[in-house]
Each structure stands twice: as C-alpha cells, then as structure tokens.
C-alpha cells in the first residue's frame, strides 16, 4: 500500500472505478442487444416496437448516461496526458462537458421519441 499524506486532493480512484463500472454496464447492454438482434424477426417493425418498450427505453437511456460518464473520464485523461498549457486544457474540459451534455439532451430526444 502506498503511504500518502492526505491533503484534500482527489486521487482519481473514484473516476477509475466509475470508468470500469460504466464499461461493465455498456458491455452487458451490448450483449443484450446482440442477443435481441440474433433472435428478433429481423424486421424494421420489430426493431421499432422493441425500442418503444418502456423498459428498453429506460435501459438504453441508463446505458447512455453510463457511456457519457465513461467518456468524461476517458477524454479528460486524454486532455490531461497530452495538453500541457493549463488554459487550453481547461477550455477542452469545458468543451467536453458541453459536448457531452448536448449528447445527453439529444439522446433523450431520440430514445423517448420526442
């Protein structure tokens, strides 16, 4: 175990765990979707009816939120690794947040057929 002096800073363990946990959620969703695709009648109507079911919409929206949290940790890591000027890095963090919130709003529209 690493002996660290706690100074109130974050060490990123929570983000690390969140990235893994959300990955598992997405993997389960993917396997479920593939299972459906392999067993469904193979029609456009079947696909549409499937995504009109409330529980599918709930699971899809939940998975998309997991995806956005996963992307946030991953992309933030990329900016932290490669972008050294603080101003630019913060601007990119801000852009990432705006981009992902935009994706969330758009995904709500698409998933719930608004």
């Amino acid at each position, binding site marked *: 175990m690493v002996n660290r002096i706690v100074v109130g800073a974050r060490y990123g363990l929570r983000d690390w765990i969140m990235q893994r946990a959300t990955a598992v959620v997405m993997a389960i969703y993917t396997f479920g979707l593939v299972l459906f695709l392999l067993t469904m009648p193979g029609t456009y109507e079947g696909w549409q009816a499937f995504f009109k079911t409330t529980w599918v919409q709930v699971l899809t929206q939940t998975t998309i939120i997991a995806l956005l949290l996963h992307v946030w940790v991953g992309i933030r890591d990329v900016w932290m690794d490669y972008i050294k000027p603080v101003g630019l890095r913060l601007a990119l963090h801000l852009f990432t947040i705006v981009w992902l919130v935009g994706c969330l709003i758009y995904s709500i529209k698409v998933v719930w*057929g608004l």
Partner: protein
Amino acid sequence: MQAMQKKRPKHLDLGKIRLPLPGIVSILHRISGVGLFFTLPFIIYLLGGSLSSAEAFETYRTVIAHPLVKLILLGLLWAYMHHFCAGLRFLALDFHKGLELQTARSTARTVIIVSLALTVIIGGMLW
C-alpha cells in the same frame, strides 16, 4: 539506487523503437475512444434514424447508403469493436488476469484479430 538508475541503458532512437503489441492495442484503444467521442452525436443520429417514421426513414436510408457515409460507418464499427474487445482485456488485466508477458502478448494479438474479423463480418452483412 541513484547509481543504478544512471547505469540503465537508454534506447531512445525513435526510428528503431517499436511499440510492442500490447502497446499498439492500448494506443488504438485510446484513438478509437477519441474517435467515438467526436462522432457521438452522429451515432445518436444513427439510432434516431433507425427509429424514425416511414418518410424520415427513407431520407435516413439514402444518407447511410452514401459510399462515404458507409466508409465512416465501417470505421465506427471497427472503433467500437476494438474499444470493446480491448476494454474487456483491460478489465481482465485489472483483475490481474493475463498479466504474464506471453499471455499479454497473445491476448493483445487476439484483440486485434477478433475486432478486425468482427468488423469484416458485421460490415459485410450490413454493406
């Protein structure tokens, strides 16, 4: 300790350094992730189009039938497959499974091959 570190051989000839296979999987995981990040609105659009009403669906079909769009779709398919397979491998590594050098190399090779094969198979089915 200090002396030991100084004696370490340095090999920083960028022309000669080759990224090992697990390193290639890792950087491709990162590249595919960034690619998927920037195309996320387009991916949501793809889902939306497949769920749209009959007349909007026709427009959607012409959009995705465009050769350039198809090429992008194929790229996205690979990005997803690689990110998925490499991600499963990383999860296993987090649980200390497959850490031995030989195993790590062979699983890295498997990730590259499987994700390419799945891209070809699924892409071929959808093309």
